[in-house]
């Protein structure tokens, strides 16, 4: 099994993702610079967090046209797993691989804190190893994570069970108070209809070792590895 972490100018969680795959799971992993025209042999792609192209124009809007993206779209259409975290999620939305958009947080503040996530479905590449009904403690760190889409899209997301993660409280209840950024329906992460692409604002790569507070994020990477090995 081979994992690739895509690196854009301004990515800053690429090393963390690489570290988790390499050191925690001992899986073969390589960086791929965004100017490469092809991904090469690959089973799993991570689009890491950061500020690709300085968030100029809109978050992810310019990265979406990086040369590597054509091959990533092909990889996605074949049903292979892609995990987009934070800025990676923004890039997936700009690419149209996932529906909707991310707006400025309703508080206008950059928020960096631990939140709880409710997992709604366990039948995906990314959630099969998550303990049932356990709220995941995973940090967020973003200024633009306020998920938005129109009513038609939200209905499709609900009908197709695509809302994978929602912000919740420590008891696992999805409440207004536990919504950190104003996202519609407390959305923290969604998959595409084929369920092979996950975009999420929280950072599981910052929550995969007990020594840094929580390893609740580890199960997300474990899920993909379980499916592929």
């Amino acid at each position, binding site marked *: 099994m081979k994992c690739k972490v895509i690196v854009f100018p301004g990515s800053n969680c690429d090393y963390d993702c690489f570290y988790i795959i390499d050191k925690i799971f001992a899986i073969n992993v390589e960086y791929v610079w965004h100017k490469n025209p092809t991904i090469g042999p690959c089973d799993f792609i991570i689009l890491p967090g950061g500020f690709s192209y300085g968030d100029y*124009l809109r978050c992810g809007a*310019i990265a979406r046209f990086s040369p590597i993206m054509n091959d990533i779209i092909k990889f996605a259409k074949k049903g292979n797993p892609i995990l987009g975290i934070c800025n990676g999620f923004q890039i997936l939305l700009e690419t149209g691989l996932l529906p909707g958009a991310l707006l*400025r947080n*309703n508080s206008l503040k950059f928020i960096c804190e631990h939140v709880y996530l409710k997992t709604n479905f366990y039948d995906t590449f990314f959630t099969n190893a998550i303990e049932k009904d356990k709220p995941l403690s995973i940090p967020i760190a973003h200024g633009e994570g306020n998920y938005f889409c*129109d009513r038609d899209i939200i209905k499709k997301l609900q009908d197709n069970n695509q809302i994978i993660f929602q912000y919740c409280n420590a008891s696992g209840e999805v409440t207004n108070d536990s919504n950190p950024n*104003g996202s519609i329906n407390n959305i923290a992460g969604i998959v595409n209809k084929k369920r092979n692409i996950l975009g999420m604002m929280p950072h599981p790569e910052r929550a995969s070792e007990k020594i840094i507070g929580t390893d609740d994020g580890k199960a997300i990477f474990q899920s993909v590895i379980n499916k592929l090995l």
Partner: protein
Amino acid sequence: MFRVKIDVTLKKAVLDPQGKTILLSLHSLGFDKANDIRVGKYFDLKLDVDNADIAREQAIAICDKLLVNSVIEEYSFVIEEIK
């Protein structure tokens, strides 16, 4: 040569937290007649093309492809010829 002045704004259905905050600030400064304000982006594009129709066509393509995210934003523009 043509100049295209492009305004991009959030769609009406999309909440604009920046605009809301600025409106509160205006009210606290005493501008109590300020009723609504929304934040947008402005692009000043120069196109090296021969006629206005091509300029319009190019401007629309540029907005749709890159400058505007149609999920949340809408745009309008005016074109003027640069002599």
